[in-house]
């Protein structure tokens, strides 16, 4: 019995910090400043990010509250308990599709970035498999390995933020001034536009039963989300100081363009190196969504083993990621996936909690 419980509780709540942050930080940050800028926040993009962080925090609160009602079950288990079989199945299926799409679109986006920035001639399918193969390997090794992996990667990559200091020094604070001239609707729409960069916390819906100390989950997830928020705000502020506001809409990936000016006596063009390091972070993100989709499939149709469902999922994700025609479509779908994530992470807890309380109230 004890052993069984130990087997179940494979993630420590401390590791959850890194899981949440690792899954959140993916490809979204690469275009974060342009996206928020264009959405209407202008040079006040950091306010939009701050708001987005706050929205994510509310979503985390709702999700953890929902999960704490069924501490040993995942979303797929209790959605049918609350909503009934058909509706629950439908919801689980939607969630599965969302996870699948997120995994596919993130690895595809990163493949496009890689192709543009360093590996021009390498075909897209190969670049996609550069992130999918480690993810597959990782989730076959189990969720424990995933948790540790996320942590090691975050420890290995946090210093990348320090490279931003150089563009920060080269930039001109005047670019960011005046502060606060963006209209409120612009900031709100900027916050919503960051959704692709912010999503990742909704995976707690599935991770929850595996975490050992449930009472720390909210704190850990919030710290993880906070780290992400800080990294994003730092990035956006640096970009706002570095780029002339007139140039921002032209930059596809401002966060990488920033790094092109870094030069040391022994190394230059740090963006190539950062992009390679970024592969590690994207692997965490893709592996997270990949795990979620494989886990949902495994629970949804009662597969014999999780590994089988992971292996089955691999070609599906691979093919789905190849579906978008070109980079514009990829960006489009990416934004839609982000929005879907935002909607799901609010609607699922609200829907399930409401139905549950209604049922309780009626049975009284």
């Amino acid at each position, binding site marked *: 019995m004890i052993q069984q419980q130990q087997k179940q509780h494979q993630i*420590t709540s*401390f*590791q959850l910090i890194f899981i949440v942050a690792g899954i959140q930080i993916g490809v979204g940050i690469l275009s974060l400043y342009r996206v928020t800028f264009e959405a209407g926040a202008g040079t006040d993009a950091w306010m939009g990010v701050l708001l987005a962080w706050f929205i994510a925090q509310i979503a985390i609160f709702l999700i953890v509250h929902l999960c704490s009602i069924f501490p040993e079950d995942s979303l797929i288990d209790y959605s049918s308990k609350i909503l009934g079989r058909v509706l629950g199945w439908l919801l689980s299926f939607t969630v599965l599709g969302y996870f699948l799409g997120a995994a596919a679109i993130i690895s595809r986006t990163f493949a496009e970035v*890689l192709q543009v920035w*360093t*590996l021009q001639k*390498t075909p897209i399918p190969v670049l996609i498999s*550069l992130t999918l*193969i*480690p993810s597959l*390997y*990782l989730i076959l*090794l*189990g969720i*424990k*390995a995933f*948790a*540790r*992996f996320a*942590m*090691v*990667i975050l*420890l*290995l990559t946090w210093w990348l933020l320090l490279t931003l200091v150089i563009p920060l020094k080269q930039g001109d604070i005047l670019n960011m001034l005046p502060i606060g001239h963006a209209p409120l609707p612009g900031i709100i729409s900027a916050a919503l536009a960051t959704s692709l960069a912010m999503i990742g916390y909704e995976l707690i819906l599935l991770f929850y039963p595996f975490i050992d100390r449930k009472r720390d989950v909210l704190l850990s997830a919030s710290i993880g989300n906070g780290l992400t928020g800080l990294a994003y705000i730092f990035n956006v502020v640096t970009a706002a100081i570095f780029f002339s506001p007139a140039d921002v809409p032209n930059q596809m990936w401002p966060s990488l363009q920033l790094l092109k000016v870094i*030069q*040391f*006596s*022994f*190394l*230059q*063009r*740090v963006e*190539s*190196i950062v*992009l*390679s*390091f970024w*592969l*590690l972070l994207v*692997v965490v993100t893709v592996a997270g969504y990949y795990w979620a989709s494989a886990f949902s499939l495994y629970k949804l149709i009662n597969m014999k083993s999780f590994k089988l469902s992971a292996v089955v999922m691999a070609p599906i994700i691979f093919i789905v990621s190849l579906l978008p025609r070109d980079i514009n479509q990829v960006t489009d779908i990416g934004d839609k996936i982000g929005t879907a994530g935002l909607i799901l992470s609010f609607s699922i807890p609200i829907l399930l909690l409401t139905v549950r309380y209604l049922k309780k109230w009626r049975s009284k």
Partner: protein
Amino acid sequence: MNPEKLKELEAKINVIHKDIETNLLIVEAFFQDSELVSKRITNAAKKKVLYGLVYLDNSVDNALINRDVLKLIRDHVTKNSPRSQVIAELEDSIANISQVYSLDEAMDFLVQGFVIFFAEGIDNAWVMELRGFPRRAIKEPETEVQARGPKVGFTEIVGENMALLRRIIKSSELKYKTFIIGTKSKTIVVLAYVETLLKDDVLQEIEKRLNSIKTDAIIGSGQLVELITDHPGSPFHQILRSERPDRIAADLLEGKAAIFVDGNPDALILPATMPMFFTTLDEYNTTWLFGSILRLIRWGSFVIAAFLPGFYIAVVSVNHEVLPIEFLIIISESRTKVPFPPILEALLMEVTIEILREAGIRLPGALGQTIGIVGAIVIGDAAIRAGLASNIMVIVVAVTTIATFVLPVFEMQLSLRFIRFPLMVLASMFGLVGLFFGISILIAHLSAMETVGKPYLSPIAPFRTTEMQDTFVRLPFFSITKRPSSAKDIKRQVSNRRKK
């Protein structure tokens, strides 16, 4: 021996017969055509066999048998003393003597080098330890040289090793458990641990694994490693081998277990974590500041040895843009004559180095060193002159190889040699991205591994703040107040230096 006879004899070996002759005949039948010596001691009239001695020639110390056993019995036989007196005196004069109640058991002792003693009319026998194996002197192990510290290494005899360990941990808490493994070799395997520190479930798991081994023979301890390790397919070793008693003692006191295999001058430590492969006692034998520097040098060398060739190849064949212009000119100029792509050039040099290294090990002492130096200098220089390799590549390969040797544990050096090559190939195809693709798989692999329930990457992942004090650096002893979390008793006795 034909099968029928074997069957017939096997039916008789679960007891000891009162009749000496029967016993001796059965044993002789089993050990037909071997170095068995069976001695029958008869009374003065030379009519009746009174006592019997059976042992394996050269496995026992003849002088001891002559002095302590044969002379004593002979005297009593001459004096016609009663049997009970002989046995009582024998039991008193031999240190390690015990009774056995079946021939089967007796023969198990026999093969370990014990002497069996039979007495007429008594249905049990005695086994005496009068072993006299050929042995060598205790020397400092050549593969694990340390700047300071005891110059003592294990020998091939397990008993001596146990004694060496006991000299360091003089406590009744140090326990030894003996296992006999191998249906043919009957190798003695001893599990050593400190009772109050090793966790019970770890102990049980190790015992279970040792008991479940079914094999003909254990010759080397490396064989045992493969039989009890969790991930035999991994390029990383999860069980540490050491020839130094002080190192083993230090690890036992951290809550690990050690396994001795008779006939091998080393012990296996488990559960081993990755940071343990970067540790020697040198860091503890100096002040913490220098100890920390030593540690950092080792981790740095690991990174260099694993990733430098891959990084160089990535930069030279794909990601040229990261090189400042001065470097570009140096590298390009040195490569103008080289007809190979960088990956081929690197593989050529690396393989040459590996061959030299292998050759150096096989050749006797001084000659091996000569081959190493001559090979490295002559081949390296000639390759550059001939235009088969560039200067920079030779430097990269040389630095990599030297960095490999910094790691104190031979097994980790082997792992490094293995992981370097795939990374080089990936780097030549995808540049830095390919290198990090390889690294992500490597980290995934490392973070998944566990040895007897202890994560391999501990204390890095899962993160343990208290253990980090003794991982990449070594903080002063008085600040390390905790043992690794895998120990049963985590609290460590520390000096009260700070409170003064």
